[in-house]
């Protein structure tokens, strides 16, 4: 075995060693910038074109010979001089995406207000929070968007990671909107370009084509950032137009909530699988006889007060009035019929994959402590209920609960259904709501609230929203919210609390230590204490009725 052959083996080994240590694309750029080198300098030294280096750094292509070994050796040397800032062990999954680059709103100066209540304006300069040029001034004379309402783009992107199921590495290896956006943004965010990629394991051959679920997750994430951008942009626009007057801006936002939410809905439907019918022929039961009279659907709205307890009776049983957060938004997750409703007699229309409305005769409800899932009904006999209520009744009549006999189903108007229909819209709105709450941004919060509540209330036969005529969806979403509330009452009851009252869309009054059962907060899965002018609100006491 000759020396030259051994040399060849050594060279190969050396190359393999360097390949194994090859940093991910964004890290390559970071190393070069940390050393203060230009792309042209590196290109000269390695013996390739400047654009080639740019492609390697963006991840569009991977380092190829000639120049590959030289480039890798250079990177290795640079990595020793400028080690990665956060984690020494590259395997450790790290959260470099925490937006430490973002200036917290509390650290910023206040907006300067003129005596007439509008924000002081001056020479347009970049905003100290987001960097976009604005004429509005803060108290220290620098430019700032009114009320620091602007959203730095990087924060919005990094706070919303991709779907948990999707692996991060391929997404980081290719050009993401993050790396594409960063060069255009000004100084305060130079720390941003090195976000996730440092976490990626140094695999020598990153998968060239992401798998279908990965592509989906990526396009979903991109769509989500685009659509949530619509929300922040709208808030921004109205605040600018109102010159910082928060009340006026909010009013304008609420006025445009319906067209805006329809636009969001269309955006989230962009690559959707099902073509829904916006103006189906409706059975007579879904037509309102006149504008003021309701149609024939019973939505099972609860109005339950435990008969054994009363505010008037003397006693010291402590009760807490609880409030489910954004109940209608959560109820977007329900089985909605896609096409035109078709008629079936008997129970032929009942199918897990179909949804609509059903004519049933319910069995009597005899539980001593829990509210009737059908709500407070005055007249007995058959009634039209939605699929969401029927699903609840069927579940409660099943072996797991055994609380009621199954209802007799007489006829149905149903269509093929999906549970994911409004899911993308729900996620976008929920994310915007969560961010707004975290940042104490009441304008965006109210705007989002107007969007989802008006979307539900006008999707039927409303003259305020003609883009959609699905009273069936409206009823199903309403009763899904009531069914969700019933589920919460059941959960409280199972944990040993007594349900004192269950009213409206979101109100649940319970005795005992409710914090054991529900987590407290403003998130969609949490509960908060309801304060209002009513006597039975917040924390109050009731007595037991003697009977």
């Amino acid at each position: 075995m000759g020396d030259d052959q051994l040399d060849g083996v050594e060279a190969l080994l050396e190359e393999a060693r360097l390949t194994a240590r090859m940093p991910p694309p964004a890290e390559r750029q970071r190393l070069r910038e940390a050393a203060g080198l230009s792309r042209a300098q590196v290109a000269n030294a390695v013996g390739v074109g400047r654009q080639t280096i740019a492609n390697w750094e963006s991840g569009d292509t991977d380092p190829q010979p000639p120049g590959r070994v030289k480039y890798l050796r250079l990177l290795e040397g640079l990595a020793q001089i400028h080690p990665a800032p956060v984690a020494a062990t590259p395997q450790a999954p790290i959260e470099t995406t925490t937006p430490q680059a973002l200036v917290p709103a509390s650290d910023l100066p206040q907006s300067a207000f003129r005596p007439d209540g509008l924000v002081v304006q001056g020479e347009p300069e970049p905003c100290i929070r987001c960097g976009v040029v604005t004429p509005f001034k803060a108290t220290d004379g620098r430019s700032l968007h009114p009320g620091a309402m602007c959203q730095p783009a990087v924060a919005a992107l990094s706070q919303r990671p991709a779907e948990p199921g999707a692996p991060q590495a391929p997404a980081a290896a290719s050009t993401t909107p993050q790396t594409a956006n960063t060069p255009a943004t000004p100084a305060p965010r130079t720390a941003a370009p090195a976000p996730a990629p440092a976490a990626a394991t140094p695999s020598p051959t990153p998968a060239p084509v992401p798998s279908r679920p990965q592509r989906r997750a990526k396009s979903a994430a991109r769509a989500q950032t685009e659509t949530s951008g619509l929300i922040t942009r709208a808030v921004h626009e109205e605040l600018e137009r109102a010159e910082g007057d928060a009340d006026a801006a909010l009013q304008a936002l609420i006025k445009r909530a319906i067209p805006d939410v329809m636009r969001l809905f269309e955006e989230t439907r962009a690559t959707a699988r099902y073509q829904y019918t916006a103006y189906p022929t409706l059975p007579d039961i879904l037509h309102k006889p006149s504008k003021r009279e309701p149609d024939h659907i019973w939505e099972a709205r609860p109005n339950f007060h435990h008969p054994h307890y009363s505010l008037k009776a003397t006693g010291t049983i402590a009760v807490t009035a609880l409030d489910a957060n954004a109940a209608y938004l959560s109820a977007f997750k329900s089985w909605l019929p896609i096409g035109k409703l078709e008629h079936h007699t008997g129970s032929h229309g009942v199918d897990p994959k179909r949804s609509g409305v059903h004519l049933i005769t319910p069995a009597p409800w005899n539980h001593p402590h829990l509210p009737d899932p059908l709500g407070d009904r005055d007249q007995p006999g058959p009634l039209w209920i939605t699929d969401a209520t029927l699903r609840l009744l069927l579940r409660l009549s099943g072996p797991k609960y055994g609380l009621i006999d199954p209802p007799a189903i007489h006829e149905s108007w149903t269509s093929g259904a999906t549970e994911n229909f409004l899911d993308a819209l729900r996620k976008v709105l929920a994310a915007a709501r969560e961010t707004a709450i975290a940042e104490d941004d009441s304008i965006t919060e109210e705007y989002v609230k107007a969007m989802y509540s008006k979307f539900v209330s006008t999707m039927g036969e409303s003259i305020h929203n003609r883009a959609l005529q699905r009273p069936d969806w409206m009823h199903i979403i309403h009763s899904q919210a009531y069914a969700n509330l019933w589920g919460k009452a059941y959960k409280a009851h199972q944990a040993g609390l007594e349900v004192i009252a269950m009213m409206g869309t979101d109100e649940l009054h319970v005795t005992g230590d409710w914090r054991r059962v529900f987590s407290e907060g403003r998130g969609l899965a949490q509960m908060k204490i309801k304060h209002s002018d009513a006597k039975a609100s917040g924390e109050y006491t009731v007595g037991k009725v003697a009977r």
Partner: protein
Amino acid sequence: MAQDSRWRHYGHYGARGLPGWVALAEGIDKMVTGIESPVTSERGLAARLRYLTTSDAGYEAMDRAGIHVRPATLIAWLAEERTPSKPHLARLDAAYWALRRRNVVADLKRRLGNRGRGTRIEIDPADQSWVAPRHRRTVQTRSINVRGSIWDRAVDAWIADDTRELEAIWDEIIQGGLGTDWDAYTFVSSVGWAA
């Protein structure tokens, strides 16, 4: 045109629906809004009388609806000293809606024309759930854009109750945008749009 088409014996196998032009006219009709209170209520009556007596067109509309009363009677109605008789109430209502429709024509054209962009309509095909499976045809829900000029003609035909013209317009709409399948949409179960 529709008579020699494949729907020659429409409904023979049990398909149900209504002619497309009827659905079109009903859709335009649904866009007209006005006084919501019924004419039998004090408020609804007062509002209709006010609407009908503020312009010459109002008096003409009453004339066309067959209300020929002395000015004193009209003044007494307006002052709520007297209430119109039942047949007169019905005629007042008819006169009000006829005038209202004429007055919103320009607005309807503007909304439907959408600055030259037209309005997209969704066509739900005839209901075939009662047709035996072997005789069913695959007809899907379709959406097509209808141009402003066609809407102008449709609204004119609608206000003039010109059924022939409406039928011709409907044929033009479906022939223009639906490909070879157009004839399946001569009869529909509903037509909807946002404007």
